[in-house]
């Protein structure tokens, strides 16, 4: 049942909340201009102010009831579930990273835009309504009920944990980075502040609190994302709708890139990069001697310098940043070599698709993995268990995509403006770099170095970190610091909301699926919730512990999570609903083959450099996913049909109501 008055009350509460948020922005703006509030103070207001609100929602929504703890009482209206799903879905990578990747990669970056939205069509049509009709709590619940037995459940638990934990660590890492940038706190402190922010809402109220917090977080992140780019768009074109206005920037970028292709000064810099890449290659080949020699040279140079030499500090810094071991030297130098190689090539057109077949195959494969992975990610699917009806589960996918699109339709505008501004630097003197370049150069998000010594900036002399595009836009648009701080708070909201959803998914997989369903089914409801909460705490601490190491591989792992989900859970879910003949043997064999093949290919392509058809590690599921389908169908046809009881189960989830006996709702 859809509860009207409940929905109306929600609308009222969130309208007041949004009004309060805008009021806070205005007050802080006045504070900054009239009272001269410091950026650090504004940063603290945003950080603790938003976390306090999320915590308050957590306290208000506290619960000890099983259905509220796991599926928010199944009374979340489609619109609000859409907002919560959007916040659940969009992580720091969508908020900060995506526009930057688009700006740097041009057309190739669109694989993320289409891939991360196209999955919702699959969810809304192939999966969400049926899982809602089934009406349990988790994906392993579904696999157990559909295929019968503990083994399908167990494989589902393993896949859920692999996929969700890497994702969680990446979110906590993101929170740490944003908190440290916003407030200048050490990264580790940022991680634990973020951890507190995640726990305050999920610990007390489970899915119920997470849902209502995610709605609040969505409102923060979308307003924060839209303000800077809207102002910038108005400045350029006097049209505030950036999503429609950035065509001029695309044209400008293309013209400028075409001019730069044959510019003699650019060619000169490209030659310097080429030479550098060759030097690095030789140095990498001569490891570990080259590492020792480089270190010795620096040390001797420092020794030979008089104590009052002004250049001393520079050499000291170089020595401090020098790789600590030959292994570290190999990673760092390989990275630098790749960058130099890229910079030595003439710039590609921004809007043209990949020119060669290999590039196109990778583009399409990546897009497919991102779409199927989205539709197989446990923390996203779980959200569709919380709607009141099957009908609302269908529309909820639409609302989710709508709220996600508000950000995704804007990201290409951010990217085009960012690239445009970057090209505007070209041809200027080094002495006239705008303030924002100097500010972000301090934290190494942008590097502009006069390589050929002509005092003029060349395109090949600019290096930009992808995160820079969104973070620097408030300053490029000439907005006060309040907005820059608010953008950081938006990024924080994006990371926190995703982390919350993941945390709940992981702790449910362990407490509900593994412990309650497989080890000790005699637990009372209140004990189940208590165990869930205890696990939440443990998983969160474990996630923060791993995030503390700030491993470079984490970002890659998240991209792999999509391939893993696409090759393991997605086929088992789709076949379970759409293929009545699918049985336990087929589904298990398919999932195992999909997971194993994907992991093997990941290992071979990432660490051994072995690539089939030139497929990159990020799209590695492209082999395991179809194999999963083929193996599952073959094995299921060679083994007996699923028992009568399970076939009736399939019917029960296929029809919204009344056709056959109701599902297993608790």
């Amino acid at each position, binding site marked *: 049942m859809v509860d009207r008055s409940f929905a109306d009350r929600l609308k009222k509460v969130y309208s007041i909340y949004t009004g309060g948020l805008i009021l806070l922005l205005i007050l802080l703006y006045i504070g900054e201009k009239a009272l001269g509030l410091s950026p650090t103070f504004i940063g603290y207001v945003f950080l603790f102010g938003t976390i306090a609100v999320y915590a308050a929602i957590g306290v208000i929504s506290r619960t000890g009831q099983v259905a509220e703890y796991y599926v928010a009482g199944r009374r979340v209206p489609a619109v609000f579930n859409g907002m919560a799903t959007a916040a659940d879905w969009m992580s720091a990578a969508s908020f900060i990273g995506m526009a930057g990747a688009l700006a740097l990669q041009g*057309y190739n970056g669109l694989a993320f835009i289409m891939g991360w939205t196209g999955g919702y*069509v699959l969810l809304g*049509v192939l999966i969400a309504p049926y899982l809602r009709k089934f009406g349990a709590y988790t994906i392993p619940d579904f696999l157990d009920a559909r295929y019968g037995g503990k083994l399908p459940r167990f494989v589902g638990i393993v896949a859920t944990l692999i996929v969700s934990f890497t994702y969680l660590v990446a979110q906590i890492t993101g929170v740490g980075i944003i908190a440290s940038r916003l407030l200048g706190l050490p990264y580790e402190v940022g991680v634990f502040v973020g951890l507190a922010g995640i726990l305050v809402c999920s610990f007390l109220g489970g899915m119920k609190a997470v849902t209502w917090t995610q709605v609040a977080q969505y409102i923060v992140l979308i307003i924060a994302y839209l303000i800077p780019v809207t102002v910038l768009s108005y400045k350029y074109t006097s049209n505030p709708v950036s999503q429609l206005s950035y065509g001029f920037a695309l044209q400008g970028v293309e013209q400028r890139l075409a001019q730069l292709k044959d510019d003699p000064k650019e060619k000169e810099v490209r030659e310097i990069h080429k030479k550098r890449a060759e030097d690095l290659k030789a140095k990498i080949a001569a490891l570990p001697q080259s590492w020792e020699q480089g270190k010795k040279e620096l040390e001797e140079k420092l020794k030979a310098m008089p104590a009052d030499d002004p250049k001393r500090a520079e050499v000291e810094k170089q020595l401090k940043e020098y790789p600590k071991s030959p292994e570290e030297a190999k990673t760092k130098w390989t990275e630098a070599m790749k960058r130099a190689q890229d910079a030595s090539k003439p710039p590609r057109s921004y809007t*043209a698709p990949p020119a060669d077949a290999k590039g196109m195959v990778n583009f399409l494969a990546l*897009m497919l993995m991102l779409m199927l992975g989205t539709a197989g990610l446990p923390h996203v699917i779980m959200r569709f268990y919380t709607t009141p009806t099957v009908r609302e589960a269908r529309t909820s996918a*639409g609302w989710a*995509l709508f709220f996600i699109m508000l950000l995704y339709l804007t990201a290409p505008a951010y990217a085009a403006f960012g690239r445009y501004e970057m090209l505007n630097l070209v041809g200027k003197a080094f002495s006239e770099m705008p303030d924002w370049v100097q500010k972000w150069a301090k934290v190494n998000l942008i590097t502009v170095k006069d390589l050929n010594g002509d005092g003029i900036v060349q395109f090949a002399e600019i290096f930009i970190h992808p995160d820079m595009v969104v973070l620097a836009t408030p300053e490029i648009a000439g907005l006060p610091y309040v907005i820059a701080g608010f953008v950081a708070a938006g990024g924080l909201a994006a990371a926190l909301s995703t982390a919350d959803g993941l945390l709940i998914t992981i702790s449910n997989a362990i407490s509900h699926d593994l412990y309650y369903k497989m080890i000790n089914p005699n637990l009372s409801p209140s004990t189940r919730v208590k165990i869930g909460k205890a696990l939440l705490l443990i998983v969160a601490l474990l996630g923060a512990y791993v995030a503390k190491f700030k491993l470079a591989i984490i970002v890659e792992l998240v991209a792999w999570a999509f391939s893993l989900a696409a090759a393991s859970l997605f086929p088992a879910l789709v076949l379970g609903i759409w293929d009545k003949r699918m049985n336990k043997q087929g589904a298990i064999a398919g999932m195992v083959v999909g997971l194993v093949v994907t992991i093997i290919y990941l290992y071979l392509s990432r660490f051994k450099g072995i690539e089939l058809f030139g497929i990159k590690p990020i799209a590695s599921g492209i082999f395991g996913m179809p194999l999963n389908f083929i193996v599952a169908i073959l094995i299921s046809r060679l083994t007996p049909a699923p028992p009568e009881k399970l076939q009736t189960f399939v019917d029960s989830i296929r029809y919204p109501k009344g056709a056959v006996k109701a599902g297993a709702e608790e």
Partner: protein
Amino acid sequence: MLSKEQLEGYWRENRNLMLLVLLIWALVSYGAALISGFLNKIVIFGFPLGYYMGAQGALIVFLLLIIFYAKSMDKVDRKYGVEEE
């Protein structure tokens, strides 16, 4: 309870809708990407069409597809009397 024919009829209509939706889904994303070099020759308000499809066009179609499927299934639900009250 519905008869076996009715159950099958409902599911057939659902399956056909699903196939239609996924066909359009594939055309606007994968299909458009494959011919985006050609589409880029068409420029509207500064947007090369091939790039635009990937950046915004496909997304808008995705949303319309979900709405279309949800609305159509509402009708099918009512036709077979399996809608929720």
